[in-house]
C-alpha cells in the first residue's frame, strides 16, 4: 500500500520508542505498589446512594443498613450471608412451649464504642424505644406481638408475646432492631455508637463515610484497620474509580453497561447475584381502561422482557412472570400463561373496545431501571397502539402521587422486600387490586406452618395474580458486585441489604 507521507513507518518507529518509554514509566509507577504489597489493611467501598443518616433504627433507606449493619451495630440475632439467623449479642435463647416467652442469654463484657457497658437494660431500652407510640422506626411491624421486655439480670432478658410470632428471631436480626445505648441513641444519626467490630470515624457529607477498627471488640476482630464508604453515584465516575484502583469494592455497581469491560479484566471479580427486587410495571387496577382484564392481558402479552433486560440492564436480570423471586423454592414458572403475541394482544384490545389503542401515562421514578426500562416499555406498547406519555418523577413526587394518592396509570418500580406477595391482599394498596380468592389463599397461608403446604399456597397465589395480570411483570433485579480480585471475605449474595465487612481482607 502507498504511504506517501511515511506516516505508517513513522507511527511504527514511535511505537517502539513509546514502548521503551512505557516500560520506563511503568517501572517508575510500580515502585509505590511494591511497598503496599505486603499487607493492605484499608479498603474503599463504592456506594451509589448516600445514607440520609447513620441510625438504622430511624430510617428506611437501604444505604443506612449497608454502612452500619454488622459493621457498626449489632442486634440480639443477625442474618448471615445465606439468609439464616445466627446469634449475635445473644449467646443463646429459650422459647417457652407455647411460643409466648423468649429468654435471651447475653454476651458479657461487651462494650459500646464510647466505652459504655452493654447490658440487658440496653436491650430493653432499644426494643421499648422502637415499639413506642412516638417512635420513628420505619419497620415497627417487626416488633408486632411483643407485649413486654423484662430484664431478669444484667445478662438475661425476656420478651413476652401476645401471640406466637414464628419469625421473631429473624425479625430481631434486622438492622431496624439493633441494640443502641440510651446515652448515645439521640445522636446515632450523625455519630453512631454501636457494639460492632468497626467504629465510626468521620462523615464528609456527600463524599465519604470512614470507619475504623474497634480494638476492643468482643468477638472475632475485624481484619481491616480502616474502611471508607465512598459515595459515587455517577456511572462514569464509578467505572473510572474502579479502573484506577481508587475504589476497590463496588457491591452494587450502578453502571450495567460497563460490566462486560470488568468481566474481561483479570484484575477484577464480577459477581452477578440476584436480589429480592421484582421489577414490575405497576398498574392502577381501578382506573379505566386498566380495570379491564383484557387490557391488562394485552399489556402482559406485549411486553418483551428480554428486550427490556438487554436494553435497560445490558443483559443483567432474569425475566419474571409473577410477583415472586425465581430463586425462591416457592417460585412457580408461569411464562406460558401470556406468551408474547402482539397480534393476539391487539385482538384483546379490540375486544375491550380499543381497536385503535389508547393514551395513558407512565410515571417513572429516578432510577436507571425505571427510566431506561420505561422508554423501552413505551416503545413496545406503541406496537399495539397504546401511546404512553412518560412523566419522570422524583421519589418525593412518586410517593406522593403514585403510592399515596394513586394518581397514576402505570409506573415502573422494583419491589425489593423479600416475600412480599402479601401486598396484593392489602386494602387500598397502590395497585388498587382486590380479589377475594387471593385473600382466602393468604388467610390459609397465615394459618399454615408446613413448608410444603406453604409453597403450594404461595404457588396458588402467584397463579391468581398472573391470571389477573394485575401488573406487568418484567424482571428480577440483578445485583452486580465488582471488586478487586485480591479482596476476600465479601458476601456473594445479599439476602438483606448489608455490606458486611467483618471478614473482608486482602489476599497476600
Amino acid at each position, binding site marked *: 500500500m502507498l504511504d506517501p507521507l511515511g506516516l505508517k513507518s513513522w507511527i511504527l518507529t514511535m511505537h517502539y520508542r513509546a514502548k521503551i518509554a512505557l516500560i520506563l514509566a511503568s517501572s517508575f509507577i510500580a515502585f509505590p505498589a511494591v511497598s503496599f504489597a505486603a499487607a493492605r489493611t484499608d479498603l474503599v467501598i463504592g456506594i451509589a446512594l448516600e445514607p440520609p443518616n447513620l441510625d438504622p433504627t430511624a430510617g428506611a433507606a437501604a444505604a443506612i443498613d449497608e454502612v452500619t449493619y454488622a459493621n457498626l451495630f449489632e442486634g440480639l440475632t443477625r442474618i448471615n450471608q445465606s439468609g439464616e439467623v445466627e446469634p449475635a449479642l445473644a449467646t443463646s435463647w429459650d422459647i417457652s412451649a407455647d411460643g409466648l416467652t423468649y429468654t435471651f442469654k447475653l454476651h458479657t463484657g461487651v462494650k459500646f464504642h464510647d466505652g459504655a457497658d452493654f447490658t440487658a437494660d440496653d436491650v430493653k431500652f432499644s426494643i421499648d424505644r422502637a415499639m413506642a407510640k412516638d417512635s420513628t422506626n420505619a419497620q415497627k411491624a417487626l416488633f408486632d406481638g411483643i407485649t413486654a421486655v423484662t430484664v431478669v439480670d444484667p445478662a438475661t432478658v425476656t420478651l413476652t408475646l401476645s401471640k406466637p410470632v414464628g419469625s421473631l428471631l429473624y425479625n430481631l436480626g434486622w438492622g431496624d432492631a439493633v441494640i443502641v445505648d440510651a446515652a448515645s441513641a439521640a445522636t446515632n444519626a450523625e455519630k453512631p455508637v454501636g457494639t460492632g467490630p468497626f467504629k465510626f470515624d468521620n462523615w464528609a457529607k456527600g463524599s465519604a463515610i470512614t470507619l475504623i477498627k474497634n480494638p476492643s471488640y468482643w468477638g472475632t476482630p475485624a481484619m481491616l484497620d480502616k474502611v471508607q464508604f465512598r459515595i459515587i453515584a*455517577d*456511572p*462514569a465516575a464509578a*467505572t473510572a474509580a474502579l479502573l484506577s484502583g481508587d475504589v476497590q469494592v463496588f457491591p452494587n455497581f450502578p*453502571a450495567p*453497561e*460497563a460490566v462486560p*469491560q470488568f468481566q474481561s479484566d483479570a484484575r477484577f471479580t464480577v459477581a452477578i447475584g440476584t436480589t429480592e427486587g421484582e421489577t414490575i410495571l405497576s398498574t392502577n387496577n381501578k382506573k379505566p381502561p386498566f380495570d379491564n382484564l383484557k387490557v391488562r392481558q394485552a399489556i402482559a402479552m406485549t411486553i418483551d422482557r428480554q*428486550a427490556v433486560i*438487554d*436494553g435497560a440492564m445490558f443483559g443483567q436480570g432474569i425475566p419474571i412472570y409473577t410477583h415472586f423471586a425465581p430463586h425462591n423454592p416457592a417460585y412457580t414458572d408461569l411464562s406460558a400463561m401470556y406468551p408474547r403475541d402482539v397480534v393476539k394482544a391487539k385482538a384483546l384490545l379490540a375486544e375491550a373496545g380499543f381497536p385503535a389503542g389508547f393514551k395513558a401515562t407512565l410515571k417513572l421514578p*429516578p432510577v436507571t431501571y425505571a427510566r*431506561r426500562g*420505561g*422508554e*423501552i416499555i*413505551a*416503545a*413496545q406498547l*406503541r406496537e399495539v397502539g397504546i401511546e404512553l406519555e*412518560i*412523566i*419522570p*418523577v*422524583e421519589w418525593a*413526587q412518586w410517593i406522593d402521587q403514585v403510592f399515596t394518592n394513586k394518581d397514576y396509570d402505570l409506573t415502573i418500580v422494583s419491589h425489593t422486600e423479600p416475600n412480599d406477595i402479601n401486598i396484593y391482599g392489602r386494602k387500598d394498596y397502590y395497585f388498587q387490586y382486590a380479589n377475594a380468592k387471593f385473600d382466602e389463599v393468604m388467610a390459609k397461608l397465615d394459618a399454615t406452618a408446613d413448608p410444603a403446604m406453604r409453597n403450594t399456597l404461595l404457588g396458588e397465589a402467584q397463579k391468581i395474580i398472573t391470571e389477573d395480570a394485575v401488573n406487568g411483570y418484567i424482571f428480577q433485579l440483578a445485583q452486580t458486585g465488582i471488586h478487586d480480585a485480591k479482596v476476600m471475605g465479601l458476601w456473594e449474595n445479599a439476602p438483606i441489604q448489608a455490606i458486611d465487612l467483618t471478614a473482608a481482607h486482602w489476599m497476600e
Partner: protein
Amino acid sequence: MALPNPNITVLPTRDVWAMATRSPAFVTGLILTSIILLLGLISLVWTPYDVSLVTIAERLKTPSHSHLFGTDHFGRDILSMIMVGARNSIAVALVAVGIGVIIGVPLGCWAAARGGLIDASLMRGNDVVFAFPALLSAVMITAIFGPGAVNAIIAIGIFNIPVFARVARAGAMAIWPRDFILAARAAGKSRMQITLEHILPNMMHLLIVQGTIQFSLGILAEAGLSYLGLGAQPPSPSWGRMLAEAQTMMSIGPHTALFPGLAIVISVLGLNLMGDGLRDVLDPKLSRSK
C-alpha cells in the same frame, strides 16, 4: 441631536438589514443558524429513522452509511434525534423569548412612560428576579410544576421578562426626551399612542439584538435543563438529555456525546455571531473600535 445614552441610535430596520449582510460575522451566523433551522424544519416532515424506534440489537453503532451519526444506547438513529431535538430546542427558546417580549416590553415601556413609583417598583421586581441565579430558579420552577418542555419554557421565559423590560425601558427613556416626541405630545397624543407610534418602532432593532442574544441563551438554558432531566421528556429527543445519557455510555460509546454537543455549539455560535454582527451595525461606539 443630544442623546442621553450614546449607545442608542435610531436606524430604519431596512438599512440595518442591508448593513448587517455586509458583516462577515452576521453572514456566518446566519448560515449556521439556518442549518439548524433547516434540520428542524425538515424533521417536521421527514427523518432518516423514526426517533422513537427502539432496536436493542442496533445499539451503540458507530457512524456508518446507514446511520450517519451512529446510534444511541437504544439503537435509535442519532441524526434523526438531533433533527427533532433541533425543533424542540428552537421551539423552547423561541417561545421563551416571546414570553419575555410580550410581557417585558410593555412593562418596560410603561415604566419609562410613567416614571416615579411604577418605575421604581418595576426595577425592584427586576432586581429580585436577577438576584436568583437563573438555573436555580429554573430548577425550583420545574420542581413545582414537574419537568417537561412547557415548564422549561416557563422557567426560561420568566427570566426573559426582566431582561426585555430593562432593554425596553432604557430604549424608551432615551427616546422620550427627543424633539419629535415633544412635538407629538404638543399635538395632544396620549402616552400610549406615542409609545405605540413612535417609541416602539424606533427601538425595534434594540429588541431584535436582545432577542437574538436571549434566543442563544435560551438554547443553552434548555440544554442545561434537559441535561439535568428537567426539559423535554422521552421519547421526545432533546440535545441536553442526549448528552446526559451519553455521559453514562462514554466508556462504550463515546460517539453518542459528540453530535448533540456539536449541534448545541453550532446553533448558539450562529445566533451569537448574528447578534454580534447586528450590534456592530447598530452600535457605532463598538464598531469604531473594530
